[in-house]
């Protein structure tokens, strides 16, 4: 259901992808769409093609033209360098762990997309640093010593929150999260998820959250199983 203020940020149609040299496709997606107002939970077991699907959406692997559109742009038509620039302009990524550059401070890590993308920098407001501090504050990292601490000195939970702030800064159209809570304990998982969903709503980014953990499904606008999406 698409409301008047919502817009389509992801459209996958007739996608078939196989790794170079592989005998059969690893992805076969008929139709998948997401609006900027949606937080979608995609569940599936390991090796079911979840990560490959995220890589295809992020433009890391070569997909056929016309199969994936992100924010209205056909990712398959972009050349390699253009895809890299497009990704940082429109997509925020959060991974399982080792998300941050260890020798940079939390704040520097959050500001990283603004250094590579003018669009993200412009959308982060007049002073991206203030925007980064606000995001960190909302994600529970307001302590100045934590903000300026090197990423490697932070706990895993703190690192994931910094990673979330980095994905959210400059309000990209789509946030892709690949098992971002697997290294967190139960309490931390719930609070991290709540924060992430709330912040995505607040900045206006769509969220595609991928996990094998069914206990996290609650509170998402849509829950999809990879087997429904990927018909290989």
């Amino acid at each position, binding site marked *: 259901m698409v409301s008047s203020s919502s817009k389509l940020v992801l459209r996958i149609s007739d996608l078939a992808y196989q790794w170079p040299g592989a005998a059969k496709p690893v992805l076969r997606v008929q139709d998948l769409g997401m609006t900027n107002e949606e937080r979608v939970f995609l569940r599936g077991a390991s090796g079911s093609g979840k990560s490959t699907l995220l890589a295809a959406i992020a433009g890391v692997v070569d997909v056929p033209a016309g199969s994936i559109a992100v924010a209205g742009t056909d990712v398959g038509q972009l050349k390699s360098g253009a895809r*890299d620039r497009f*990704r940082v302009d429109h997509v925020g990524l959060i991974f399982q762990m*080792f998300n941050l*550059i*260890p*020798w940079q401070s939390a704040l520097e890590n959050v500001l990283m*997309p603004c250094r*590579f993308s003018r669009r993200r920098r412009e959308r982060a407001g007049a002073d991206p640093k203030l925007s980064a501090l606000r995001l960190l504050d909302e994600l529970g990292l307001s302590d100045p010593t934590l903000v300026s601490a090197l990423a490697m000195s932070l706990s895993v939970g703190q690192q994931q929150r910094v990673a979330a702030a980095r994905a959210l800064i400059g309000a990209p159209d789509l946030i892709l999260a690949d098992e971002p809570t697997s290294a967190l304990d139960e309490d931390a998982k719930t609070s991290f998820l709540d924060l992430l969903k709330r912040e995505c709503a607040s900045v206006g980014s769509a969220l595609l959250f991928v996990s094998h953990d069914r206990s996290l499904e609650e509170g998402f606008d849509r829950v999809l199983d990879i087997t429904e999406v990927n018909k290989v």
Partner: protein
Amino acid sequence: MMTSLSLAVGSLWNRRFVAALTVLAIALSVFLVIGVERLRVSAKESFANSASGIDLIVASRGNPVQVLMATVFGVGSTGPGIDWDSYEMVEALPQVAWAVPIAMGDNHRGYPVVGTTPEYFEHFRHSSGRPLAFTSGHSFSEEDGAVIGAEIATRFGYEIGTTVVNAHGAGEVAFDLHDEAPFVVTGILMPTGTAVDRMVFVSLEGFDRLHAEKTTSVDPFAQETRANSDPVEDATDGVEADHHDHAHEPDKINAIYVGLADRGAVLSIQRAISEYPAEPLSAVLPAMALIELWSITGAAEQAIVLMASAVALAGIVAMVVMLSASLEVRRREFAILRSVGATPLRIFSLIVLEAGLVTVAGLLLGLVLLGALTAILEPVLLSRFGLQVDASASLLRESWLLLAILMAGLAASFVPAIRVYRMTLADGLSFRL
């Protein structure tokens, strides 16, 4: 660019211990390469400076390099001496502006003693035409007067009026002291950075007196030594021991420094002298003899330059090892950078930039080390070897060498950078390594 620079600096700072060691390795390479270059150029300059202002050196026929080494640098001997008649012949040639006789073969505490005339101090030029100057005192006017080079004055603390005793032969250890014929220092020369600093100058009369008075020595030991070794010494010294007081006209001298009124006539004069019928003579062009000398020392020089280059190469290899060894560890870092918008090409350039920074830091540190060490060692180099290490002397060549090292560093960094490029393309955004 600023982003890449700050990322490169940050990443290097994160690995600062290893990075510092690499910078040090490159600094030492630069130190050695540029140090060898400066020494080489300074040594050549020092040699060339020593012989400037002299158009021809006339000596008994022999190897030009040997003549040059013996007369200008006081190393070795000129072979048999030449007759005073030959000196008069040369002096009388119309194209000759001045001719200064040189007698050698004695030493003062290992430093060569030169018998000459006061004109020597007027005509000798060093370091691109600069004349000799006295720190104190003046040329010798008396038979027993001596002028000493700056290094001798400093090393032995001699002053005007100090009495010095010379020894027979050119070796450092002398058993045959001319203590019966002492000299009094009348003048001390200003430092020249050439062999002159390490020479004692006496008048021809004084030089001859040494040998004339020797026979009357009452020292039985000296007497005995002399009696045993006389024939050999006479043959090798080149100063015939015809022990009479020749006053202004010795029988034999070792060489003549010649200045020409018209330098264009140098070849015809050279020919005229070599065709002199009375005795076999050589007229050596110092510049040509130097070229010949460089061709002899060239192989050793090449070997040293080659060794320095090998060390420089080792420094570059150390950097490639440092960058390559860190790649596996940094794989995640690169994947993170890609996820936030860095293209593989950007990461490639990041590695090259890191190499550039390390190399430039190594170059600067190497130059600073070299500058500091030169400043410390300069007095020693000058006093012991007569080497004035002048950084500006080989600036252009040094710049090329530094540029070559920088380029080699950047080119070498392509090895790890290409690996990173491939790695980041293959890894994509995969973090689960």
